[in-house]
């Protein structure tokens, strides 16, 4: 494979062309599902139709007889470890005794043609004994609930106790129950890749993923191979947003390839993609604030339950984000948070852009608005009185040491000009809620404005030794010096490779930069492309490697005649700590803030919404690539709009009702309004060029801002996302759940890792 040569432009701070852009516009860029190899077979997956069932028997006789079938494997055929998982190895490669969610993989087939493989799949006879699915997160916590895993249903519990909540005296208390639905990442490119058996008995895997080394760490033990015989190389990635953090077809295709001795391609269609990756956790949140009459927060308490679905994925880490950011970016001296993530027979949930923060931002911003209304203070003024600043202490006891320009973010968002007023009658049909297909022409349309403020960590937390490695080589090319960059970091569309090239151009003064394909072979882990971390982490590693190359070049008097210069460097961020027993600790390394303002038109008769404009002001440290940073804000805001208004995987007794783009709606160009973006640049200490990641925060804050505007328009509490027409018209029961105990004690056992005597992170749970 060859690298991509950058056009001679775009240093740090300048808008740069995408380094991989040109072949993407012609369609020649190859994504995981586009790959092929001579003599390859097609692999397909049999998935459970039941959300909970015992497997009594699997009969493959008829399936194996289909002409063209080369291999058919079930769980008994897995040669190594039978389970895998991102943080806890609890998910069977292929289910053998029980299935725990609808869509769980049960058997895999490789055949000469896709048609033959599918024909065989239809002939596999699985005798299921269906069980009543545990389809509700509260029910999973109830005494006597069926235990979905040997260690119970509580996947993790986080307890944060700060100050003295019980002694806190407030003039005013407000509280609310909030719910959010299950959102899908819905990258337009589905899962896909190819596994090719190697001469050394190992396997080469080309796949669209997010973290090559941790894929390998999960794949190799299941294949019964040492890690050095499993090489993972990145294919083109058609978006990810968290959906590719977990393994999908990697182990399955490798098993089939090793069994047949032939390359095996697997490419999911849209329906299988919905079943083949994790989703955003549905959340139930109870939150209360206590404040003085003057509007100073004195206490906050939160209870969060997340539905983790059937397997752990990254749920333990998502819970930490939700719990630590639960009470908002406000100075509150007395805080208690009880966060719990449970197993159910619903689809597994894990990473999605925002990672637990969008759910709690929706709740804390709704409640802040309610408190403002009760105190007769403007929502922005209330926030201004309480926002954190440098040196503030978070509920975890963490002292904010990094850049904390929260006031400036909020001030600038407030100051952005509003969109022009539009006449209530006589607009083009497109400019009314419902668009051209709407029937109203201005009757009952109400315009309203809402604000939201949010925050999210950058990079990994809780004491994880987060690192990325990069190798930079400077050599003499035919037309001048050329820098090449080797990392295992994934660019799934957000623009990392362009940023890396900008760094090399800036530091080495070269025009031509080659970013080599990302692989596990010959370079260390870059960590996942998640947690808004790669510009900091792999950007930091490339910056350090470039500086080392520069120093060597200077030592040689600036002459490359003696040969090329290669330097490898690893970047680590400021270390963090784990929680103590009170949920206290220096949990996050870097935190970014953002304020969004949403302007909406609501048709009060039909419950139809038109988002007119979003204004987004983001704390970003330093902008490396302005056009790319804007693109992150715009795209992330659009996904937030989807969560606010339309996106939800609907399950009924654990069965997914809408696994298609016909039934699961994502925003189109007709739904996304103009987005006005501004950046506040205050350098973050210890980060390359002072950057802070920008990937997730737009999706965290936008839903809360849109919900605030809709509340303003309708006067309704709107405590559940997504907000549907029925909610706007008061036709659906709200998320208010008075039967919930206000200060619950979470039943069940200790969090799983502690229960099993293990630390979080890449541990096998039950050996």
């Amino acid at each position, binding site marked *: 494979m060859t690298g991509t040569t950058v056009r001679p432009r775009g240093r740090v701070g300048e808008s740069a*062309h*995408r380094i*991989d*852009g*040109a072949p*993407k*516009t*012609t*369609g*020649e*860029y*190859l*994504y995981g*599902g*586009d790959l*092929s190899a001579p003599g390859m077979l097609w692999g397909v997956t049999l998935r459970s139709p039941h959300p909970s069932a015992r497997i009594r028997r699997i009969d493959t006789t008829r399936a194996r007889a289909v002409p063209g079938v080369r291999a058919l494997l079930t769980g008994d055929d897995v040669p190594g470890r039978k389970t895998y998982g991102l943080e806890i190895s609890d998910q069977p490669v292929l289910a053998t005794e029980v299935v725990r969610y609808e869509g769980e993989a049960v058997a895999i087939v490789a055949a000469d043609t*896709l*048609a033959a493989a599918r024909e065989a799949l239809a002939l596999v006879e699985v005798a299921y004994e269906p069980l009543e699915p545990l389809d509700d997160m509260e029910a999973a916590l109830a005494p006597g609930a069926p235990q979905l895993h040997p260690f119970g249903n509580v996947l993790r519990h986080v307890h944060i106790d700060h100050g003295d909540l019980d002694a806190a005296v407030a003039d005013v208390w407000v509280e609310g129950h909030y719910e959010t639905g299950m959102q899908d*990442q*819905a*990258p*337009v*490119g*589905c899962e896909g890749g190819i596994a090719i058996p190697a001469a050394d008995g190992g396997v080469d895997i080309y796949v669209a993923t997010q973290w090559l080394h941790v894929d390998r760490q999960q794949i190799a033990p299941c294949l019964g191979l040492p890690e050095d015989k499993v090489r993972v190389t990145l294919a*083109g*990635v*058609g*978006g*990810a*947003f968290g959906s590719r953090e977990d393994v999908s077809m990697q182990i399955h295709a490798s098993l089939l390839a090793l069994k047949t001795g032939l390359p095996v391609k697997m490419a999911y*269609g*849209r329906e299988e993609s919905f079943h083949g990756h994790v989703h955003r956790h549905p959340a139930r949140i109870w939150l209360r604030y206590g404040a003085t009459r003057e509007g100073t927060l004195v206490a906050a308490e939160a209870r969060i339950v997340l539905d983790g679905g059937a397997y752990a994925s990254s749920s333990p880490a998502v819970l930490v984000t939700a719990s630590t950011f639960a009470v908002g970016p406000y100075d509150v001296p007395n805080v208690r948070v009880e966060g719990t993530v449970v197993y159910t027979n619903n689809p597994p949930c894990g990473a999605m852009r925002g990672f637990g923060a969008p759910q709690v931002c929706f709740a804390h911003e709704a409640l802040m608005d309610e408190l403002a209304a009760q105190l007769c203070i403007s929502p922005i003024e209330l926030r201004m009185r309480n926002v954190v600043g440098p040196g503030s202490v978070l509920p975890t006891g963490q002292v904010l040491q990094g850049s904390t320009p929260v006031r400036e973010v909020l001030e600038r968002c407030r100051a952005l000009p509003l969109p022009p007023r539009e006449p209530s009658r006589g607009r*083009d049909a*497109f400019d009314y809620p419902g668009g*051209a297909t709407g029937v109203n022409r201005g009757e009952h349309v109400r315009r309203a404005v809402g604000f939201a403020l949010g925050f999210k960590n950058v990079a990994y937390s809780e004491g994880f030794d987060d690192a990325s490695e990069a190798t930079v080589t400077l050599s003499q090319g035919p037309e001048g010096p050329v820098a090449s960059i080797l990392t295992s970091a994934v660019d*799934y*569309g*957000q*623009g990392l490779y362009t940023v890396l090239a900008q760094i090399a151009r800036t530091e080495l003064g070269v025009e031509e930069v080659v970013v080599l394909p990302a692989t596990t072979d010959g370079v260390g882990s870059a960590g996942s492309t998640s947690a808004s971390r790669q510009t900091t982490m792999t950007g930091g590693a490339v910056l350090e490697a470039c500086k080392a190359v520069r120093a060597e070049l200077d030592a040689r008097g600036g002459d490359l005649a003696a040969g090329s210069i290669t330097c490898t460097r690893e970047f680590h961020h400021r270390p963090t700590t784990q929680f103590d027993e009170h949920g206290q600790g220096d949990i996050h390394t870097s935190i970014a803030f953002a304020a969004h303002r949403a302007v909406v038109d609501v048709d009060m008769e039909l419950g139809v919404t038109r988002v007119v404009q979003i204004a987004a002001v983001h704390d970003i440290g330093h902008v490396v690539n302005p*056009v*790319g940073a*804007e*693109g992150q*804000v*715009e*795209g*992330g*805001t*659009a996904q937030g709009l989807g969560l606010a208004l339309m996106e939800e995987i609907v399950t009924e007794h654990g069965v997914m009702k809408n696994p*298609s*783009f*016909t039934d699961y709606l*994502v*925003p*189109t*160009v*007709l739904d*996304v309004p*103009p*987005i006005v973006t501004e950046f506040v640049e205050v350098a973050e200490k210890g980060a390359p060029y002072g950057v802070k990641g920008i990937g997730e925060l737009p999706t965290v804050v936008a839903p809360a801002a849109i919900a605030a505007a809709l509340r303003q328009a309708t006067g309704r509490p709107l405590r559940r996302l997504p907000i549907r027409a029925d909610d706007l018209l008061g036709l659906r029961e709200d998320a208010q759940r008075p039967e919930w105990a206000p200060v619950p004690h979470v039943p069940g056992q200790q969090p799983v890792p502690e229960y099993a005597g293990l630390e979080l992170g890449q541990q096998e749970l039950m050996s």
Partner: protein
Amino acid sequence: MIVRLTVDGSERIADVDPATSLVALLRDALGITSVKNGCEQGECGSCTVTIDGAPACACLIPAVQADGADVRTATHASAVVRESFLDAGAVQCGYCTPGLVVTVEDLLERDPHPSEHAVREALSGNICRCTGYRKILDAVRLAEARLS
């Protein structure tokens, strides 16, 4: 059934099951991956091609219906449109881009100076999950200016 068609100027022939869609014929039988496949239901527009000059989702067209047709993918689309996408920052993961390039080229051929509503209506069948569409709208205007 035997299907003969022209794809991006090259003659192609394939023996397909009557139930095969055009996108499956192009991608799986002929290995032409410049047409992408995002949903198989005509919702995302990733597989947009022109068939005898008219844009369509290849996933909704039976392959046999394309017998004798002239099919074009983004590979042979207007360089002006493609470069406008790059210059406007309208490409992120790029999976939707080939379909969008075909759609935008068709729009500007039919309507060289489209209204904002005409642009949004023309693009409403193409889902982009990365960009939030704003820079795609910029790319359309850039291409419009460069083509006129």
